[in-house]
């Protein structure tokens, strides 16, 4: 069994409501949102002026000026300025990796408390200059004489001045995540209906949680937004069925992925408070849950040998095997809904004899999970997905869910760009 010592406990979380990009948070930077999120967490736990062991955070779309994003957020927050911080990045798994990394540090006795955080703005995204212009500008900055500068500057052509917007495309393939997933969707023959049903369940689950006040102590409003703006409580299968496909239109099979069963670009931030049991007890904080173990996996998607977002299908069996667990040992499955079909492809892979034998090296299929336990409070299809913030959202949500329902064990799974996946086991404390 992993985690020889598991002193680290999950104490709670805070996020701002997630907003569709270029809407309410259009002018908010990653730093703004992260600072506000940390401040909300600090207020919830009365930590103003305190020094936390370490704050770990990150963003997927990052400005170069944000090289020290998390530390800058700490300096702008109500925490003591003597709180150290560091940035990490693992694409969409960044948020979960901050939790894993700080949990490990607490378990190792390096720190007693930590705040795991993640933020992303698809609105205030960095715009980069054309590579040619960038090269010329860099040359210009290296030039020593006026004559050199004039000669170098003369190379600038009007066409170089057009800025390049960042894309969510994979750097090695130039395909967007949706286009990649469309190939996987077709390969696993995930139907449009199944995708729409999952999307509907996500909206219903999240709407129900909001209505019953589940997020009252997990979310702090921001800029006048007090609920996730992507949430459509009134979605129906009929309304979802009316949407036109947006991904997979170039494939020979019919396109099934729509704006309704894919996550939109979203702005937001999330954080999780972690501490050793002793630290929590000293402050009278009630532990909600603990992160028991985590497993990352990666697949070679570059030539299309495996789907870009399929890594969790490999990580989960390894994680469960190491912990001697099967799907039946879990009460909740929190599988990040990058796209409805991503989740469904993972389920299909685990249920596939062929995948089990050939890809996982098992005797047969890995297993079938109880769909009733899947994303009970909705997931990214409804909440939206500000990349690095999703891990914090899921961990805080599932930790509180375990505490409230008295359930025992949750499986968290997040797929990420670059063919990666990060998965974790969370148990009630």
């Amino acid at each position: 069994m992993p985690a020889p010592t598991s002193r680290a406990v999950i104490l709670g979380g805070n996020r701002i409501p997630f907003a569709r990009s270029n809407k309410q948070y259009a002018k908010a930077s990653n730093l703004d949102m992260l600072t506000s999120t940390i401040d909300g967490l600090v207020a919830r736990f009365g930590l103003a002026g305190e020094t936390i062991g370490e704050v770990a955070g990150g963003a997927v779309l990052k400005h170069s000026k944000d090289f020290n994003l998390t530390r800058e957020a700490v300096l702008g927050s109500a925490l003591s300025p003597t709180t150290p911080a560091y940035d990490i990045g693992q694409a969409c798994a960044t948020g979960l990796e901050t939790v894993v990394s700080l949990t490990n540090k607490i378990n190792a006795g390096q720190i007693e408390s930590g705040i795991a955080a993640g933020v992303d703005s698809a609105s205030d995204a960095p715009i980069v200059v054309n590579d040619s212009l960038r090269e010329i500008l860099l040359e210009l900055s290296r030039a020593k004489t006026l004559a050199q500068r004039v000669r170098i500057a003369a190379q600038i052509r009007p066409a170089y001045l057009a800025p390049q917007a960042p894309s969510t495309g994979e750097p090695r393939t130039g395909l967007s995540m949706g286009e990649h997933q469309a190939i996987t969707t077709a390969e696993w023959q995930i139907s449009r209906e199944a995708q729409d049903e999952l999307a509907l369940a996500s909206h219903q689950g999240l709407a129900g949680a909001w209505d019953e006040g589940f997020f009252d102590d997990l979310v702090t409003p921001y800029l006048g937004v007090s609920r996730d703006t992507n949430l459509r409580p009134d979605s129906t299968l009929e309304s979802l069925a009316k949407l036109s496909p947006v991904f997979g239109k170039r494939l020979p099979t019919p396109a099934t992925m729509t704006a309704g069963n894919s996550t939109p670009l979203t702005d937001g931030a999330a954080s999780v408070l972690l501490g050793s049991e002793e630290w929590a007890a000293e402050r009278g904080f009630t532990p909600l849950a603990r992160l028991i173990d985590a497993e990352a996996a990666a697949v070679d998607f570059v030539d299309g040998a495996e789907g870009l977002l399929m890594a969790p299908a490999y990580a989960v069996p390894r994680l469960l095997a190491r912990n001697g667990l099967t799907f039946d040992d879990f009460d909740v499955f929190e599988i990040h809904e990058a796209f409805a079909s991503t989740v469904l492809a993972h389920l299909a892979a685990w249920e596939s004899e062929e995948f089990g034998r050939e890809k996982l090296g098992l005797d047969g299929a890995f297993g079938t999970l109880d769909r009733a336990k899947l994303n009970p409070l909705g997931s990214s299809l409804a909440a939206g997905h500000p990349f690095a913030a999703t891990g914090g959202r899921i961990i805080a949500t599932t930790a509180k869910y375990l505490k409230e329902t008295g359930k025992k064990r949750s499986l968290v799974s997040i797929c990420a760009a670059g063919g990666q996946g990060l998965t974790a086991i969370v148990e009630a404390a």
Partner: protein
Amino acid sequence: MKDKYLELMGGPLGKIAKTLGLPQPVELQRFGSTPESYLRRPVLVLGSGSGAQTIADLLLDNGFEVRRHAAPDESLRAIIAVLDDVTSPSALSETVLGLGGAVRSLAKCGRVVTISATPDPTAQDPQVAAATQGITGLTRSLAHEMRRGATANGILLGRGVGIDAPSVASALWFLLSGKSAYVDGQFITVTSDAGAAVTDAEFLATGQAGPLAGRTAVVTGAARGIGAEVARVLARDGAHLIGVDMPQAGQALAQVMNEVGGKSLQLDITADGAADAIAEAADGTVDILVHNAGITRDKLLANMDASRWDSVIAVNIASQARINARLFETGRFAEGAQVVSLASTSGIAGNRGQTNYATSKAGVIGLTAASAGDFAALGGSANAVAPGFIETEMTAAMPPLTRQVARRLSSLQQGGLPVDVAETIAFLASASARGINGQTLRVCGQNMVGA
């Protein structure tokens, strides 16, 4: 909202206003802005009985400069008329006339405090009742005659309460200090000998030495306005804060709580389970609870719809009653728990367009009075504070002329500040004030409304 008129009166325009007979409000001296020279001025204690001597001795013990007779040309910080032993209206003469002779010697923002028995027609001899009731008329009228920010208030001794009761001293410290700057023409009734004795220095201390040190205070509606200021003042006096507000106000609430080092609790106080959530946030039991959250949904009753009526009742009074009841029922009020609720002068005088609001606020007064027994049994207290015209975002939204008139309608000729309400709440939440129970104290600058 800045009171521009008040600012101008502090300048050359003050003289012109005097000539024209316009209101001449002065900037009130509050806690922290009271000059040292003022604090050094003597207090004149009038009254011939043993009660007067007790008060004089108390003041001396607490380092006050005390006079028993007015000295000519000596500027006074306060005059205390101790009338606890008066048995008939005609016996008032000597002390009252002495008071009248000294009133002109009061410094700017000086204080008059009368101390007398609570009028109690059901128990008192008719002559005594006439005298005690008479003193309230005297104090209120004198309050109207006060100038330059000075106030007149009374301390009333309940049946069987001695003048040496801890809460009498505590009320005195409150009334003599800048904390009561906007309390005028009011009476603080000490209902029992309960409460911890406190010195003036202890009453005025802050932080870990403050009167609320070591206690946890829950303040509802703490995100902004009066609630935010209550949180700040309670924190200043040493309390750990738990700020409660609607989830939608979470961002502002977080800011206030981080400022005072408190905890935020996003909660709809009308929801089932609100009391449990509050108790849980307070680590099991509630010690100080300030029912501040309130809303207005003004409309003439003829035009009132159900949602306006029901929501105001639900938030302003029903939630308070439900939370108190639930906390009692589950045994989650701490020993010595103190509750302070926000009433309003509208609840006392009524206000056009506010049938719903005035109902709820009058309801608070009733709830408070009726809860006193339960809290006394716990060794605690329940009181209400009724603010008059307070400069908040809510009053800033009033039409300018209405706002100006509303300000000048009080004896102090200005609106109060949220901190004035907060100071009164902090006083009523302190251990030394546990002998004050079931009362509603107005913080209104002696507003004509509801007088």
